[in-house]
């Protein structure tokens, strides 16, 4: 399993180093108009989005877990969590643009505008719209990671101790529980930062254009017919790696400093009496974010259905006697052309990764250290910008004759799905009381029988979720599909990115709709199956 994940990633890095160390190309990279600003935008948007998402996630978890929204928080963040970045990005652009859904809802009534104003809101030079898109996704991811990390932290005990000292629940949580949680999530947080700086999924629909973010610049160079410019892409991808390393060092150093001040502030012992304003503030902020995120998904469906979408009508008018059936007839062939490949890859990835994980999870069931090490190793590829190692992966797979094949793309998808599947399967496996095993074995069952009849049913719900998660990860993957698929394998993600990259919002919306619907359906199915499987049982984790 580790070979599957690490070999291509390592090979990728080595290839990137070999191909990228080129002084002439470096000079050309640095001579590109606006490259400094481009790198600056990448750093600024990545860091700002990570900091904001982290703060929001902490506040959300603190408010929810000391209040009544405990289960609702994870349930409500699930749609935004599972819908791919690209789809959220494309949808968000449709919401906040001057001719977007928000302005349509307000016009002409509240704004008095009959025509959309000329405001630079989407793809703004400061990258604010892009930061917004990243925050929508990453805060949900970090909320999930924080909730999972709660298992490793004696939260209830810490909270009670702080409460008995007279702190309000929110203050108590933020002073003692949050710092403990923070220590548990460093690795996923680093992955969020790296993704923020080096993604193209949000930068294509929402990022600025003159100049674009550095990774979008690289993405364009990779697809340039000129070999000289190609060489710039290799060198640039090494530069991107360097930028990420520096950003990580800077980020965690600053994090250390912040921790120091946070602690001093907490130790001053000031008790806040009333926490209601803070709670309301957090609630309103989260609701606004959630509503915008949901509108983004709604906007995808509206845009996909609308041929023309004249401002300021909210609902696309069915023109020229067009019926809903005509709309479907124009959309369905587009969606169908990639549905097969998308679903095949996602299903394949889900089953391959789950099958790879199960034996390893068995081995590491009662070995916390091994579990941690495997998890960290599997996570390594996510700490390297995709751009940097994917070209090497492509070279490796080309040598093996696997480029442009489903098997090759599946492999690359597995690299990205494994860490997440491991995260939930391994910890669920270790949480099963070993005495179940022991009882089964003393009753004379073989190891295999015990595994199939005791462990697997106990794990069933986790496995269903793991399958849905791997499915969702695969659906979302863009760069791996593009590079390893050699342009031959078109999925909803590659088509959505291509359409968004060429600015065609309707085409992008149709593909993004599929991107959004597939993971949601997978999770709904997983929960549905889990619920029916254990309808008549008690005590089995649902």
């Amino acid at each position, binding site marked *: 399993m580790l070979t599957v994940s690490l070999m291509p990633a390592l090979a990728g890095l080595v290839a990137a180093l070999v191909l990228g160390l080129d002084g002439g190309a470096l000079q050309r990279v640095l001579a590109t108009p606006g490259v400094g600003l481009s790198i600056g935008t990448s750093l600024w948007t990545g860091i700002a989005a990570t900091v904001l998402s982290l703060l929001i996630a902490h506040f959300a978890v603190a408010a929810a877990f000391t209040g009544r929204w405990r289960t609702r928080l994870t349930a409500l963040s699930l749609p935004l969590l599972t819908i791919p970045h690209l789809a959220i990005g494309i949808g968000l652009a449709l919401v906040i643009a001057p001719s977007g859904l928000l302005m349509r809802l307000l016009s002409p009534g509240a704004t008095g505008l009959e*025509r959309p104003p000329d405001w630079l809101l989407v793809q703004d*030079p400061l990258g604010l719209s892009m930061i917004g898109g990243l925050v929508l996704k990453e805060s949900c991811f970090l909320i999930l990671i924080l909730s999972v990390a709660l298992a490793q932290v004696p939260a209830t005990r810490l909270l009670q101790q702080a409460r008995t000292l007279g702190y309000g629940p929110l203050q108590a949580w933020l002073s003692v529980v949050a710092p403990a949680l923070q220590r548990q999530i460093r690795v996923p947080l680093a992955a969020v930062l790296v993704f923020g700086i080096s993604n193209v999924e949000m930068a294509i629909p929402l990022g600025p254009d003159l100049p674009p973010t550095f990774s979008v610049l690289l993405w364009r160079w990779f697809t340039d017919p000129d070999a000289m410019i190609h060489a710039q892409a290799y060198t640039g991808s090494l530069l991107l790696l360097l930028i990420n390393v520096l950003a990580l060092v800077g980020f965690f150093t600053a994090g250390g400093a912040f921790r120091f001040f946070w602690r001093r502030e907490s130790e001053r012992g000031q008790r806040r009496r009333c926490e209601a304003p803070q709670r309301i503030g957090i609630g309103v902020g989260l609701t606004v974010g959630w509503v915008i995120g949901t509108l983004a998904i709604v906007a995808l469906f509206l845009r996909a259905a609308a041929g023309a979408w004249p401002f300021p009508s909210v609902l696309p008018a069915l023109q020229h006697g067009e019926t809903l059936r005509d709309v479907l007839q124009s959309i369905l062939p*587009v969606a169908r052309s990639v549905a097969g490949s998308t679903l095949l890859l996602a299903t394949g990835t889900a089953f391959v990764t789950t099958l790879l994980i199960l034996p390893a999870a068995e081995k590491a069931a009662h070995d916390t250290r091994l579990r941690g090490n495997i998890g960290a190793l599997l996570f390594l590829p996510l700490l390297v910008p995709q751009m940097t190692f994917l070209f090497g992966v492509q070279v490796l797979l080309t040598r093996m004759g696997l480029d442009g094949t489903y098997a090759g793309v599946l492999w690359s998808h597995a690299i990205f799905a494994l860490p997440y599947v491991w995260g939930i399967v391994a910890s669920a496996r270790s949480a099963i009381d070993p005495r179940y095993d022991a009882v089964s074995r003393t009753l004379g069952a073989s190891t295999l029988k015990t595994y199939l009849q005791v462990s697997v049913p106990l794990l069933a719900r986790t496995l269903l979720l793991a399958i849905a998660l791997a499915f969702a990860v695969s659906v979302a993957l863009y760069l791996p599909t593009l590079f390893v698929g050699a342009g*031959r394998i078109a999925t909803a993600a590659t088509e959505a990115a*291509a359409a968004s990259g060429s600015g065609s919002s309707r085409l992008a919306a149709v593909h993004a709709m599929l991107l959004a619907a597939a993971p949601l359906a997978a999770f709904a199915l997983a929960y549905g199956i889990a619920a029916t499987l254990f309808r008549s049982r008690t005590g089995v984790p649902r």
Partner: protein
Amino acid sequence: MFAATLLACLFSHSIAASEPDLRDEPELARQAAGQTVYFNAWGGDFAINRYIDWVAGEVEKRYDIRLVHVKVTDIAEAVSRIRAEYVAGREQNGSVDLMWINGENFAAMQHANLLWGPWAEELPNSRLIDWQGNPTTRIDATLPTGGYELPWGTATFTLFYDREFVSTRVRNPDDLLCWIEAHPGRFTYPQPPAFLGTAFLKQLLILLTEDTARLQEAPGDDFQTLSAPLWAWLDRAHASMWRTGRLFPRSGPAQRELLAAGELDWMMSYNPAEASRAIRQGLLQDTVAGMVFSNAALSNSHFLAIPANASAKEGALLVANFLISPLAQIQKADEARWGDPSVLDPNLLTAEQLSVFERLHQGGATAPLPKRRVPEPHPGWSAALERAWLARYTR
């Protein structure tokens, strides 16, 4: 299963290593049966994608060929992939079989000997092409195609505007600049190097430069002087353009959506029938009309080419032959489908075919024919203009 399919693919490719005979259509069809043809073509437009889908259905029925439309944002992506395949030593069984290509990308591939040919003038249907009447069918941005490219559509650079908001007549760049300055935020063009953006720059350059013959040769030291009027025009226009020239739509269709949403009053296309088609399909308000710069309208043909390492050359040839058949050209010229003008010589068509062509309805938004067409400048100009544009307008 994957391995089996993979092996089957490799096997079927290795059979077809010998050079296909173009004139022997039945033999070609026998060899092409069962082949998968990867057609790399721009995929940014609903209608065009649907047209290619229709073609796929037809060649499947006729020749048992599976046509896969590999949708690229810019055909340069496919050129770079082919180049990478050659670097990796893959001189056969390449991933691209047929490509929709033009200008500088054709020049780059031809220069690197990456194209297969000559084949274009030997196809059975190529005798129907208007080679004499339309010289752009043999010359792609000043480069002779030499049979390495097959023309499959013609184009004239056309501006479209919303009559409800544009009442003055625009005949030249000065008129346009006046309108832009009087209506801030309502005009823009696709961001170069998107091909329509570059086309707009070329069209302006042609109109602003007295010496159009000079543009037929590669730019040299005089690039600065010759392009100076263009930059002066753009500097002034940008200040009054959509998003004050700090953001541009990424393609022609993107700009069309902005026009449809009411953010803009203008769009542009190489296809004079673009707006008529879009109006018919409900994609654009019916107040849009087209115009060409009548004294010097930038015109060209667009082409098909086969890479030298294509895996399914027989299939690609049959698909190409079908694409220039009267049936496919009629369907393509139909504004209900794509509305792309045909490359065929009307005199060589049967009376029946001709009457179908003539019966094709032309919408009211289709631009009138220009008085004088100007062929594409040397591809060196596209590259130089794009570079200079990015250097100038990237902050």
